[in-house]
């Protein structure tokens, strides 16, 4: 066991980025292989964390605490650690990023900068998922924003500038709300502890907010306002209707690898934050606003699905599918049951793999046909059978075909929703049935898209397309294999999550 393994993990990609910085930009292949080696090392480390994680213990593991900024009245620590919620997210980020690196080997211009940005992004992601200090969390949260802005803005499609600025401004607003609410949580926490604690540490704050020494400070209005501010900040990231409009264009314009990371992992920071800080610090408020969250979740599911139905651009279609699928996370959280929260976390991971695969497939098809317009495609099964087959498999995973991971998260979430306590989520069955409707719609728009792109008579102009290159098998097989793995044997994932979820629920007597 490596001491301080989490710090190694977090700063390994940064070190890789610094190394790449030292390489002349003409040596593209050296840069590519160095990036690949770095991300593979990160994958290994994150899997090591996964393996050595003790599944029987609730609470944080591999903790590390270094005092960092001490201004007397403000103390910020470098406090990191993982529990069953973060461990899967670490693995998800490293794996999806690694596969995205392989998927982006065909990028030719500004290779050096591209991989530096990707690696910095990975450090930010790891940081977010291990940070136990609100301030640290925010720092890493913002650190992910900048590389992605440049990646979209430099390597994006036709409307890249507009897309990248829209992304920047939306997530910037999210970050601003986040830091304000963090500071408010900090000061109110200080008052609530009877001026005995002054901390940004999430576990300590959870304790303070659960058992305040000065309860009169924490009126239900203040708690509600703090939670809603947090919720909006994360809702922009997830994204939740009506804060979603940055997403389709950002996805559509970003290069394939970036879209994979963006949709596969970056979004998950929103869901993760909502569970880690939202449920972690304000469980009572989650219960209080459960109906609101569930309504937004169902709107996400159905709204995203109905809009995906009429998209003509494949990437936008998948983007709306992503919105639809993130609704399941919200619904799981709102159900406030072990199964529901487990389902939400499972969906974060599973959707990470599936949507990355979908975007990769769309990217691979678009690269060959030079169009993403569904109306111009058709009959691709004939010319590129392997790609078409993997596309179909990805679509099936997104539809929630059992045996692939999407099904497990839908199942767990629905078990949670139908079993939700009536005092927290009234009319749970209605939400469940609407989510079921969403599942049908998902099948409708995805199959319709498949029918119009890969099925049908072959078009002459696509008869000479090249099928999958060997390097493309790595992301395709990797992502599909992982989805299959946790779909066939979900315990591999749930035994990591389960203790943490039970612990969260037991702390609030839920």
């Amino acid at each position, binding site marked *: 066991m490596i001491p301080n393994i989490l710090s190694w993990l977090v700063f390994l990609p940064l070190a890789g980025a610094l190394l790449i910085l030292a390489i002349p930009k003409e040596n593209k292949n050296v840069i590519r292989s160095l990036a690949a080696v770095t991300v593979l090392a990160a994958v290994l480390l994150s899997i090591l964390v996964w393996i050595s994680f003790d599944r029987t213990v609730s609470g944080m593991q591999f903790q590390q605490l270094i005092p960092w900024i001490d201004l007397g009245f403000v103390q910020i620590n470098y406090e990191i650690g993982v529990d069953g919620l973060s461990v899967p997210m670490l693995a998800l980020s490293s794996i999806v990023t690694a596969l995205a690196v392989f998927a982006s080997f065909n990028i030719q211009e500004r290779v050096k900068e591209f991989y530096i940005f990707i690696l910095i992004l990975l450090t930010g992601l790891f940081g977010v998922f291990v940070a136990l200090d609100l301030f640290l969390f925010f720092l890493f949260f913002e650190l992910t924003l900048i590389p992605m802005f440049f990646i979209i803005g430099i390597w994006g499609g036709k409307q890249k500038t507009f897309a990248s600025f829209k992304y920047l*401004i939306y997530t910037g607003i999210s970050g601003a709300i986040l830091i304000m609410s963090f500071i408010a949580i900090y000061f109110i926490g200080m008052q609530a502890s009877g001026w005995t604690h002054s901390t940004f540490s999430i576990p300590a704050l959870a304790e303070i907010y659960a058992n305040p020494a000065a309860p009169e400070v924490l009126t239900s209005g203040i708690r509600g306002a703090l939670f809603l501010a947090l919720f909006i900040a994360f809702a922009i990231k997830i994204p939740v209707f*009506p804060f*979603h*409009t940055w997403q389709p264009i950002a996805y559509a314009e970003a290069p394939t690898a970036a879209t994979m990371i963006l949709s596969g992992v970056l979004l998950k920071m929103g869901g993760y934050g909502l569970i880690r800080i939202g449920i972690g610090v304000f469980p009572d408020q989650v219960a209080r606003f459960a109906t609101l969250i569930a309504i937004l979740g169902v709107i996400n599911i159905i*709204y995203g699905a*109905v*809009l*995906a*139905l*009429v*998209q003509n651009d494949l990437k936008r279609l998948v983007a709306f599918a992503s919105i639809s699928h993130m609704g399941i996370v919200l619904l799981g959280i709102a159900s406030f*049951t*072990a*199964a529901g929260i*487990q389902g939400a976390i499972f969906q974060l991971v599973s959707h990470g793999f599936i949507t990355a695969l979908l975007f990769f497939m769309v990217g691979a098809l678009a690269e060959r046909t030079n169009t993403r317009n569904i109306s111009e495609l058709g*009959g691709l*099964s*004939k010319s590129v059978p392997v790609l078409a087959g993997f596309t179909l498999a990805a679509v*099936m995973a997104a*539809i929630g*075909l*059992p*045996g692939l991971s999407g*099904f*497990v998260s*839908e*199942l*767990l979430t*629905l*078990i949670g929703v*139908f*079993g939700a306590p009536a005092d927290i989520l009234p009319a749970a069955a209605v939400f*469940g*049935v609407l989510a*079921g*409707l969403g*599942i*049908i*719609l998902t*099948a*409708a728009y995805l*199959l*319709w898209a*498949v*029918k119009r792109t*890969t*099925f*049908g*008579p*072959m078009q002459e102009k696509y008869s000479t397309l090249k099928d999958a290159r060997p390097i493309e098998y790595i992301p395709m097989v990797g992502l599909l294999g992982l989805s299959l793995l946790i779909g066939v*044997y*979900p*315990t591999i994932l*749930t*035994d990591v999550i*389960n203790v943490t*979820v*039970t612990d969260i*629920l037991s702390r609030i007597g839920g």
Partner: protein
Amino acid sequence: MLQNAWLIPVFPLIAFIILLLFGRFLKDKSSYVGIAALALSFIFSLLVLMERIGGETYGFTVNWLTTGDRTISAGYEVTALNVMMLFVVAAVSLLVHIFSREYMHEDNRIHVFYSYLALFSFSMLGLVLSPNLLQLFIFWELVGLSSFLLVGFWYFKPEAAAAAKKAFLVTRIGDVGLLIGLILLFNATGSLEYSAVFSAIEAGAATNTMLTVIAVLIFLGAVGKSAQFPLHVWLPDAMEGPTPVSALIHAATMVAAGVYLVGVMYPVFLASSTAMLIVAWVGAITAFIAATIALVNTDIKRILAYSTISQLGFMMLALGTGGYVAGLFHLMTHAFFKALLFLGAGSVIFALHHRQDIRNMGGLWNRMKITSVTFLIGTLAIAGAPPLAGFWSKEVILAAVLEGGGIVLFLIAAVTAFMTAFYMFRLFFRVFTGEFKGEHEPVENKKFMTVPLVALAVFAVVAGFVNTPFAAGLEGFLTEGLNVGEQAHGTIWLAGLSVLLAAGGFGLAWAMYYKGTVAQDFFTSKAPGVHKLLLNKYYLDEIYQAAFARPTVAAGKFLAEVDRRVIDGIVLVAARSVERSGQVIRKQHNGQLQTYGLVTIIGGLAVIALAFVLRGYFG
């Protein structure tokens, strides 16, 4: 042997993986891989069946998923019902694999076809072996996937692509109902194991309303899969797939899974009389309307498809009226004779170079002897001619309906039985008798195609003898240790009525299509409106299009506009207004140092003034 039952689905799985990875190198040798795997499965299931008769139920489970303090397990189970199903599925599947070798040998994607077929066999056998509802659901979806893949096998035909999508989507509606039903069941009883669920329900774990809801939702799944009204519309379209697929999936096995599901969950249905009533009526309506559509259709495969729907309705009707054994017995016999009919149709279609319209057929009796004879056996069996398989199973169904369903349902069943005999013989006479109408003289097909026909014909003759009024072997076997209520038995007058109905149907068809003593438009000219209605399948496709598909797409278009103009519009307006105000304020920066200085002074003074007002002078 029972401990090794899990191997039965594994053989096709292995075949699937081999064909997926190396299929393109094996080309048409891949058929041997599939046939070998299925042969092994068939032998194993035969062994398991023989050991289970007179033996005990065997089960094995491992934990699959833990949520909170509840666990969902996975495993397998060998019960009386599923060994019967295992045997039927393995047998039909093996024969279809053999048949397809010849039927598909011209297709250069034959390895893909066999890999899909193996995937289907794996899923279907796995479905049957499942010890709990969730695992059943998992395989349930996988058979749906294989059905989708096989229907869409000729994806370059737009009709096939559309049919595949329709099949998946329509069954998906039912599947979501089933999923919700099983989740409700899980939340109510804390388990999904069949035995645990049943004992929990007996102990009163769920209220009566809840049970009805659960049963209806589970039945919704069966409605989708077994193509019951109103979700039956996908099955006729699914005939776009290769004919062996239609025989295996859309006649014998997958579509029967819905019936099997109701059979497996029978105690849940029994606990709710409302649910039983719904099952019975849905079955009856389905049986009736599908039979009426089959009367006028002219596509050989679609007639058989509507016949399948109608027969599945019969099974549901039986189950809904308490005829547990009757429904499942008919499931088994129907699997054999309908597979026989479909393969026979496949043989005809293959010989006629993929022509399917019966109006252009005729006179094949002398040209394709084996196909004709076996097809006749199938026709007789489905019409209910004694002592073929269909006679015995249809008779117990009629008995169950009469006893448990009342006179209205019985009349529907009787009329449907009459129509069944009529449209089947109409099909037979038009295809095999009369004048041959094509150019190429058809010849009998090779052994790979005729051997399965003969084998199935044998089954269609003898399968009925496992459960006769004289020796109700199947009934004892299936109901042992299960509380499914008293089973109805046929009387001699019922048997007479059944034979009479079959004979009536035969006679009318004979008169109209063989002898010509009754004009072929005798009925259609009397009621052209009805005829048109039937030809258009009650306009159900059009109604669904107008009621669901188009409004959804329209809503999508509308919401997309809303999204673009309103939601994104608000965002853009906010962004633009910031930009505009920036432009206005920018003009104030005119480069005049002294203005800046003045503003600074005044601003500073304002701050001081504020401090003055709020706190007094500096403190």
